[in-house]
């Protein structure tokens, strides 16, 4: 039949066929539209609504760190921050050049910002602002606020940031916070379930979140961090917030808890000022309970510089500074204790029973043992010394003799009783144990037997012996407390310290009394090495103490003969460290202190006045009075917040 038609007629017939085909296609498309937009419309409407609601992580406010009287040491501060929004900037280079007129903008930072702007655009996250500068000064902030409108895509805002209002004062105690690094993520998310870990990582990566990297900030990370919340937010496909929805209070962020340290910030300040630029350390301990009231290590660094990332150049400057500001001297500095160790030796001698307090030793200025001669610090000698005078005059010969009689093992045992060789973490980082040497240690570490001559050195606090200023302060506090057990603390109200050490080895009260009288003699009896420092200048209370001079290196015979080993004739780095330990008031001890003045040369000359003034300040300020947190302790604390957020999708 088709054959009979002309092509023209066939064309018309085929047109009809094609119209039919086209009509079928049209009907199919309309049918599909009906299916999607009538039959399944409700389903897809629901999907569309779910699609755009995200639970966005709301970062918690980090808890404050306060001193014992509630003075803020680390807090959240509102600071000016300028950023650029990539999607609102057409020429980032030009915008940054404009910004450069108002703020200091080094090339490296400029490049980093440009790179980040580019990355955000590629990720279609052009709405995520890129921080150009933080911690704007008030003047910068005010000027930028005014001029922001003239610049494309520039955003000037206040943002919450960690701040250390007392700067350097607490650098070594508190440490600092920083943006979480890959290491921090691994370290902090250890032992979490995979589900928790996801939220946790999301939290740690949040631009407003910092984690404790050093010191108390690191130790109390979980306590301070708080729990993130979830905000219901309408977002677009790229995660850009479009609209806030009504919030569920149960999903609000729980701020971190405040942490109290036992330190009195004003005493700390006074102690640092008293150092007047010298390097060294001072630790003040409350004799009644072992609370650390001041913990000074100077010079120090400014932890504020670390919060938003310190530049490599600035860090190198700190690291290579000859005064070593990064070095936590108070709990991580190991020094030979020198004569401040003599109370330990005396206690060991009395405990062992081989020496009685009244036993005398004649000091001629030197002491012969084997084929070597040991010298007393006083060239002409002290004459006849009993124990009280031995301590008071710090007679080396007396201690050579009683140390030899007592033996190294007994001295080491008593040293451990006082806490030497222990690591007192107290919630800080960088604490060290020092070293109490004994024959077993020497055999194991040096492969040599103990020479008896070393016991003599041990007797005057020299040789391998190394202690921290914190340990010295605790030793003094135990003597001042008549041997009462003591748990040193730095965290007043905060997380449990699992490294806590209680010093409760029994000390004989009679022996301690002899130490106290010796120390009183040092500062308050004519001829005592620290006689001039005994009066605290408060019209009554006196301090009792013991000086010490720690050799930085051995004195050569030639130097001894010439008598040139002090002052300007010797380079600073080689000068002796000056030490002083003391407690006050002498008749009713409340505060114990240790002071190390590096290269201060003379314990009684350089360190004793500091100890006196700091103790006087502690008494004047009544630093040991009831702390704020013990009044607040009966107020119910919020329940321990876990740091896992309520369930939410990882936006």
């Amino acid at each position: 039949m088709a054959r009979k038609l002309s092509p023209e007629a066939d064309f018309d017939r085929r047109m009809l066929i094609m119209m039919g085909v086209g009509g079928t296609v049209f009907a199919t498309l309309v049918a599909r539209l009906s299916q999607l937009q009538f039959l399944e419309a409700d389903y897809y409407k629901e999907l569309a609504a779910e699609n755009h609601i995200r639970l966005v992580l709301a970062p918690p406010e980090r808890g404050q760190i306060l001193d014992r009287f509630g003075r803020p040491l680390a807090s959240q501060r509102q600071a000016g921050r300028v950023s650029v929004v990539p999607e609102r900037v057409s020429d980032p280079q030009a915008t940054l050049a404009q910004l450069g007129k108002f703020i200091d903008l080094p090339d490296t930072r400029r490049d980093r910002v440009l790179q980040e702007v580019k990355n955000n655009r590629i990720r279609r996250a052009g709405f995520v602002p890129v921080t150009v500068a933080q911690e704007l000064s008030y003047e910068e902030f005010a000027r930028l606020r005014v001029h922001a409108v003239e610049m494309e895509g520039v955003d000037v805002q206040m943002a919450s940031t960690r701040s250390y209002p007392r700067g350097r004062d607490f650098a070594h105690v508190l440490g600092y916070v920083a943006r979480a690094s890959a290491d921090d993520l691994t370290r902090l998310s250890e032992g979490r379930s995979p589900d928790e870990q996801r939220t946790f990582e999301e939290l740690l990566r949040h631009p407003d979140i910092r984690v404790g990297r050093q010191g108390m900030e690191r130790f109390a990370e979980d306590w301070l961090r708080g729990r993130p919340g979830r905000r219901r937010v309408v977002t677009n496909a790229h995660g850009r917030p479009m609209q806030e929805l009504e919030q569920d209070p149960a999903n609000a962020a729980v701020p971190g808890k405040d942490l109290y340290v036992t330190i009195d910030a004003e005493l700390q300040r006074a102690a640092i000022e008293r150092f007047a630029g010298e390097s060294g350390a001072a630790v003040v301990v409350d004799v009644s309970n072992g609370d650390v009231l001041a913990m000074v290590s100077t010079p120090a660094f400014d932890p504020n510089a670390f919060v938003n990332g310190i530049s490599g150049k600035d860090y190198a400057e700190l690291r290579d500074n000859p005064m070593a500001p990064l070095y936590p001297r108070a709990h991580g500095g190991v020094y030979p204790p020198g004569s401040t160790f003599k109370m330990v030796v005396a206690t060991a001698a009395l405990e062992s029973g081989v020496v009685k307090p009244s036993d005398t030793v004649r000091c001629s200025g030197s002491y012969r043992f084997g084929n070597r001669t040991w010298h007393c610090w006083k060239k002409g000698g002290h004459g006849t010394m009993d124990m009280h005078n031995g301590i008071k005059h710090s007679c080396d010969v007396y201690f050579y003799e009683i140390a030899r009689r007592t033996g190294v093992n007994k001295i080491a045992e008593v040293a451990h009783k006082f806490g030497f060789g222990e690591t007192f973490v107290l919630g800080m980082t960088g604490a060290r144990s020092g070293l109490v040497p004994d024959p077993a240690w020497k055999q194991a570490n040096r492969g040599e037997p103990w020479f008896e001559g070393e016991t003599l050195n041990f007797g005057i606090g020299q040789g391998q012996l190394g202690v921290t200023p914190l340990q010295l302060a605790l030793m003094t506090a135990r003597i001042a407390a008549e041997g009462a057990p003591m748990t040193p603390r730095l965290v007043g109200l905060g997380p449990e310290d699992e490294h806590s050490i209680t010093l409760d080895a029994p000390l004989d009260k009679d022996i301690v009394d002899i130490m106290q009288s010796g120390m009183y003699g040092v500062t308050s009896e004519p001829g005592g090495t620290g006689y001039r420092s005994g009066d605290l200048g408060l019209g009554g209370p006196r301090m009792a103490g013991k000086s010490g001079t720690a050799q930085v290196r051995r004195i050569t015979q030639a130097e001894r003969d010439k008598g040139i080993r002090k002052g300007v004739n010797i380079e600073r780095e080689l000068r002796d460290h000056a030490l002083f330990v003391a407690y006050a008031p002498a008749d009713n001890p409340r505060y114990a202190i240790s002071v190390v003045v590096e290269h201060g040369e003379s314990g009684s000359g350089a360190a004793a006045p500091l100890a006196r003034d700091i103790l006087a300040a502690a008494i004047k300020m009544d630093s040991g009075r009831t702390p704020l947190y013990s009044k607040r302790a009966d107020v119910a604390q919020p329940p321990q917040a876990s740091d896992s957020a309520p369930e939410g999708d990882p936006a």
Partner: protein
Amino acid sequence: MSREGYTGFTRGEARTATAGSLRFANFGPFGKIARLPWSIILLIVAVGLTGAAMLFSVGWDPVAQAPSPDEANLWRDQLTRLGIGFVLMIFLALMPLGLWARFAWPAYVGVIVLLVLVELFGVMGGGAARWLKLGPIVIQPSEPAKLAVTMALASWYQRMMPTGGQAPPLWVHGGALLILLIPAGLVFHQPNLSTALALAAAGVMIIFFAGIAMRYVVGAIGLGIMAVPAIYTFVLKPYQRERVDTLIAGITGQATNGLGESYQIEQAKIAIGAGGFSGRGYLQGIQSQQEYVPEQHTDFILTIIAEEFGFIGAVGLLTVFAFLFVWSFRVAGRNKSWFGRLATIGATSTIAFFAIFNSGMVLGLLPVLGMPLPLISYGGTAMITVMACFGLILSAHLHQDEKLSSRGLF
């Protein structure tokens, strides 16, 4: 329909006839322009303006309640292209069919040469060599190929159609197939599957309307269906196979991984479905305004129409397209020359193929290929090609009684 007077011109006579019809004075200076089907042209422009309006919506920032600076140029660019396309369409519409026919073979040969040059020296982009760089000019020969192949095929049948009401012999159709397959093969090899398919669709429609016997049509369809498994296994690339798999999973309602290919389709379906019957309103589509649908300014622009104007808007748009295609087919039917008829069929089929394939793929009925929605999707080349096709159709309408020689066309 009388066919007398269509043949027997000498070469010179054909020229005279062509030149004569060029003179506007025949109908007064603006007679031809006045005789253009302005209601149809207005409809075409209206669809184009709808596209620009939808691109404005794509570039809208619902938070700022203002056009987003990044995407503010979408609709302006599109309006510019629409303007250029409009002028081109009117210009082409005024060209008599004789002139179109005269350019058919030079255009065809030129396109083949360019396609071969692309094959040899083409600039790579997106995994395919589609562009040719001639100094500062970058051309994509597969675009003019759409019109050139249509014109060449129409011209071939104009020359070969026997007089006296007889159907052309089979070898004529074979020749047409060859004319079609050379450029289609070259484009397919670039690879540019969507353009190759569009060429093939237009060519097959022309051969169909030129009167190839029905048994071959039925046979070809049968063969095609049988070849589907073989094509799937041996011809398709892995990513293309994945698209087909996604498509089948989507139609049969199986779960997909919601990523990549299926993410786009899934989000498109959500946008369309969420529009419901009457839509969420202009600039109000939550799915669209929050940029959940990838490529919403180009291939997936139908989704924002369906979401913001609902079933009414989507079906309305499809109806307007259907009306334009039916009108164009009737222009083909009314034309007195085989060139005019078949060229109109080819041009209409090209546009219709894009419209149907695009809707089908956005609605999840066809695999995702780079197919723009004619007149609406953002893009310059597609706009020019579609406007040129409409120009040819309008020319066929304007010159429906023009006599064309069967000679002198080579």
